[in-house]
């Protein structure tokens, strides 16, 4: 066989270079820094072994952030998958205005997190915000959404779901388009009502899409930052202080680079474990062709 020579590497270079520069190098550097105590601004680092990890393991603050992240995961991943699926099913079943509605539902995905967060700041404003005004019309006194410790995390989660479920709609619509219509027709003749058709035909065929969307939603939830930063800044009283937000604060506010790098590594392991668990759970339930 003829040797391919350097050409394949040359062709891969435009993709490999940014990948190495922005993913591989920072990841390896994070791993290295997590084993060091780094002096702010000087670049000097002293090797401390697993000290940063030991500190993390014993930190009640970090445990609190992990709990907030888990809660945020429950508030965002499941709703954005379920709402995305529901909206996609409704759009798929109803061809009227489908193009317009698809655009409307998918629109939030295309705007930046910062812009979306600003929009929700206006909506959530306790006195002038539309949300409380609407509640007022119904005779309900709306809370201080972003200032009340009980409501802050759900409020940020609502904004996050609104921003992200459209992404899931796109994938579910593509998945639904791959369900052969004669399968649902065969199921109708077999005596399956709408729920049985969904449960026994549509859902199994959609399972690879559902699995992908779930994995991505879980990862997105763990990595959510922009909206938390703008809407609450981790507050009030640390109620929206997620793992990523805590990491950001330690890295760029407190300049504890080594400690923050250890958090980055731990977060990576958490996401990896969460994904592995999902793969394991899905093994028997996802049907590929």
């Amino acid at each position: 066989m003829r040797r391919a020579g350097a050409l394949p590497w040359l062709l891969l270079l435009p993709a490999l270079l940014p990948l190495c520069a922005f993913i591989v190098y920072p990841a390896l550097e994070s791993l290295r820094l997590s084993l060091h105590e780094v002096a702010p601004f000087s670049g000097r680092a002293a090797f401390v072994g697993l000290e940063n990890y030991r500190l993390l393991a014993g930190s009640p603050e970090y445990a609190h952030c992990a709990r907030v992240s888990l809660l945020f995961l429950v508030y965002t991943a499941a709703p954005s998958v379920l709402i995305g699926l529901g909206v996609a099913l409704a759009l798929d079943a109803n061809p009227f205005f489908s193009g317009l509605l698809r655009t409307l539902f998918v629109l939030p995905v295309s705007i930046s997190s910062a812009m979306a967060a600003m929009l929700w700041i206006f909506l959530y404003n306790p006195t002038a915000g539309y949300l409380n005004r609407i509640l007022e019309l119904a005779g309900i006194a709306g809370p201080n959404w972003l200032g009340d410790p009980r409501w802050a995390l759900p409020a940020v989660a609502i904004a996050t779901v609104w921003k992200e479920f459209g992404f899931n709609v796109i994938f579910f619509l593509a998945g639904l388009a791959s369900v052969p219509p004669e399968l649902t027709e065969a199921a109708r003749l077999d005596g399956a009502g709408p729920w049985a058709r969904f449960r026994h035909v549509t859902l199994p065929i959609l399972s690879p899409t559902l699995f992908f969307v779930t994995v991505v939603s879980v990862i997105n939830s763990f990595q959510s930052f922009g909206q938390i930063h703008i809407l609450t800044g981790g507050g009030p009283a640390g109620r929206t202080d997620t793992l990523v937000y805590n990491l950001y604060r330690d890295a760029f506010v407190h300049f504890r680079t080594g400690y923050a790098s250890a958090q980055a590594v731990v977060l990576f392991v958490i996401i990896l474990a969460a994904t592995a668990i999902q793969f394991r759970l899905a093994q028997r339930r996802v049907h590929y062709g």
Partner: protein
Amino acid sequence: MTGTSHGVGVELDKVQKRFGAATILHELSLSVNPGEFMVLVGPSGCGKSTALRLVAGLEEPTAGTVSIGGRVVNDVDPKDRGVAMVFQSYALYPHMSVRENLAFSLKLAGLAKSTIEERVREAVRALSLEEHLDRRPSQLSGGQKQRVAMGRAMVRHPKVFLFDEPLSNLDAQLRVKMRAEISLLHRKLRSTAIYVTHDQVEAMTLADRIAVMRGGRIEQVGPPLEVFHQPKTQFVASFIGTPSMNFVPADLLPRGAAPASAKTAGFRPESVRIDGKAAGVALGAASVALIEPLGTGAHVHLRLGEHALTAEARADAAPAAGKKVEASVEAKDLFFFDAEGARVA
């Protein structure tokens, strides 16, 4: 045996189906007798599949009524019509094993586990699927998938079987085999069957009666041989029979051979004499354009002036390409059609 189920009559009465501005079926009426094997045959887009889907309940008629067993079923859900359908693409549930595919409708119907097992066993035995029960559809060949699709229809003990071009995805050899299996199964089950195909050989070999469709209308209904020997229109004459009937302008025939109202004369390839023994009606000198040997016989493609004709000959007696032959046909083998395509003699 599943063969204890008995068919019921199916009646389409002035059924019309429109999709937006397009009319797919024009006041179509058709009566299928209990236990009969009716084949709807016609070219693509003639509305035969739509007619079948109306019987299944997968489409609603725009006008007219569909009756099964004497009961109007326009508003009856597909599952309650007592029909089972075999789809062109088989429509097997890809995530279920063969066993689960067969049992699915019975589970939904809430039948006892023992009844479900018994019915699945019957179908599996009848269709020789024993070895494949735990396989997924993706692990089956085209013929095996076809059998599972038929089994899925059988286990329900339907009063009417509907087949939507079930053999068109199979290779030629398997198609012939499955065609025979379907025919044998129908003889055993004696359920009513409505079978849609564009393949007139399937129609001829399977049907008790054929309905030839064109442009959303039925052109002729009758037993296969009657439709073959007594076509009512030029379209039916051209569609039924392989190779297709030859058509020439009636005035090409010798004076007095065609009735005055005839515009077109038709004759089947097997009626054309090119062996030098002239038949009653001379067609004239034709040149041999192409020979298609088929084993014992051959199709001989002829040029008769500007007209293309096909004749059948014994392979060992077929003339060579380029040769001139005298073509003729017996008067009794001629069909005549008027300008609208209706048969006049």
